[in-house]
C-alpha cells in the first residue's frame, strides 16, 4: 500500500509549482493514494531484461537542415498574448 503523507503532497505541489490550498492538499492526498495503489498492480508483471518503450512508430533521429523556419509569426503577435508587459518586454515581479 502506497501511503502519501500531507508533506509529500505539498512537496509534489512545490515540485510542480502549484500552490494548493489546505483543502486541496487533503483531497489530493486521498486521490493520489488510491491512484498509486491502483497502478502498483504493475509490480506483478515480470519485466526482467525488458527494454522500456518510449516511442511506438519506429521513427528515430528526425533531422532537418539547421535553418530557421519562418512560421509567419511576428514579435508583435507574440507580445499581444502576454498577460503583462512593459513596452516590448514581458513583465514579471521583481526576482532579485
Amino acid at each position, binding site marked *: 500500500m502506497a501511503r502519501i503523507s500531507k508533506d509529500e*503532497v505539498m512537496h*509534489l*505541489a512545490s*515540485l*510542480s*509549482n*502549484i*500552490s*494548493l*490550498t489546505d483543502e*486541496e492538499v487533503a*483531497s*489530493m492526498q486521498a*486521490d*493520489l493514494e*488510491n*491512484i*498509486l495503489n*491502483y*497502478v*502498483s*498492480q*504493475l*509490480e506483478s*508483471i515480470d*519485466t526482467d531484461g*525488458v*527494454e*522500456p*518503450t*518510449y*516511442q*511506438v*512508430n519506429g*521513427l528515430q533521429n*528526425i533531422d*532537418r537542415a539547421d535553418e530557421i*523556419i519562418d*512560421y*509567419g*509569426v*511576428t514579435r508583435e*503577435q*507574440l507580445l*499581444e*498574448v*502576454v*498577460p*503583462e508587459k512593459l513596452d516590448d518586454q*514581458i513583465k*514579471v*515581479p*521583481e*526576482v532579485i
Partner: protein
Amino acid sequence: MTNIQQIVDAVMNGSSTAKQQVQDAIKKAEDKKDYNAVLSLTSERALKRADEIDQKIKNGEKVGKLAGVPFIAKDNFLTFGAPTTAASKILGNFKTPIQATAIEKLELEGAICIGKANLDAFAHGGSTENSAYGPTKNAVDQTRVAGGSSGGSAVAVALGIVPFTLGSDTGGSIRQPASFNGVVGVKPTYGTVSRFGVVAMASSTDVIGPITKNIADAELVMDVLAGKDEYDATTLPNFFKPRIGEVKKQKIGIVKELMGEGVEPEVLKVTNDYIDKLRSAGHMLEEVSLPLAPMCLAMYYIIVPAEVSSNLARYDGVRYGVRSDASDLAELYGRSRDEGFEAENKRRILIGSYVLSSGYYDAYYNKAAKARTLLVQQFDALFKKYDVLIGPVTPTVAFKLGENTDEPLKMYMTDVMTTPANLAGVPAISVPAGNTSDGLPVGVQLIGPMKSDADLLALAKSMEGYHE
C-alpha cells in the same frame, strides 16, 4: 444532407453555397446551445471564408475536395476566429497567432471551421465534466454525459450541427464519446496526422482524428489530414489511402479480456450481435487473448501523467494565458497554476511528478515503460495471425452526469478498453453497433496493426447497413 460528398457536390453544382452551409451549421449550433457542445463560434471568419469559396467557384477556380463543408474543432486545436481555451481557465483568453496543421490542411481543401467544441480541460477526463465551462450533455439523453474528453465534438456530430468534427485521443478520447453518442470515431496510427498546433497532453500517445456520422465521411477527412509535417517530427510519410472495391474476408480476433467481467450485459450483447454479423458476412472470428489488456489502465495512468506533468509545465502565467496576482515570481507561478488548472489537471501533474521523482522513477515510470514493450509484443504476435481485433469501446453506456465525478479512479475505468491501442500506437475505430433496450448507443471497437487505418475503415464500411 448529412453526407460530406453530397454537400461538396451541392456546393460545386450550385444547388447550395458554402455560405448556406455555414449559416445552417451556425443556426443549428445556436438552436442546440443547451447541450453545451460548442464553446465558441467563429461566425465572422467562417462566413468570410464561405464567401471567398463561393466566389472562387463562380470564377471557376480550384476550391478543394471539402469545398464548403463546415466543421468544428475540439477546443485544444489552435484556430483563428475564436479563442483556444482547451476548456481551461488558464487559456481562457488565448488567441493564437498560428493555426494547427490539421486546420490548415482542411482549410486548404475548402472546409470551413465554424467553432470550437467543449472538452475536459486539457483533455483530461472521460466525460467532459472537467471542462471549466460546464459539462456537455449526451446527444441521446441529456441527463447523461457526453463522454470525453472529445465530448463536445461527438455531440456536435450526433446532433447534426456539422458533418464532421476533430478530436484528440490520448487514451480513448475520440472513441469513447463517439460510442456514447452513436457516431464514428477514428483514432489513427500514432504519427498519421500532425499534432502541430494541438495542445499537447501525452506526446507518446496523443493522436488526432475525425468524428463523423458514417465511415465514408471519416475516410474523406482522414485522406485530407494524413501525412508528414515538418512541424511534427513524429509524423509518418502518408500511407493512408481509402480502399475501393470489395473487402476480402478477414481473420478477426475477439479479445476475451475485453469481453468479460465488468462489461454491462447489454454492451456485450450489442458487441456479440456485431460479431455475428461479421461472421455471417463471411469473416472468420475466434477468441484470442491479449493477456496484458487488463494492465493497460495502470500503465496508462503512470505514463500519461508523467508526460502531462512535463507538457503542462509551460503554463506559468508569464508568456501567455491568465496570470494571477502575486508579489513574487514563485507565487506568480504557483497561484496562476492553482487557479488556472482544474482539479483533474492538478491530480495528473502531481501523479506525474511523483512517478518521475528519483526513488520512484524505476518502480513506476520505467516499470510501466517496460510493461509497454511487452504489450507491443503481445499485439505484434496477435497481428501475425489476425487482421483485426474486436471488442467493446467501453464497459458501460453513457453514465449519468455527476455519477463518477467524486471518484477519479472510477472515472479512469471508462478508459479501460481504449488505452491498449494508444500505448501500442495502433489504429482503432469506434463504430456505432446498436442501442441498449433504453435506446442508448453502443459502439464496437476495431483495432488493427500499425498503418492499417484504411483497412479498418473499409471493413467497418462494408458492415454499415449490413443485414443478414
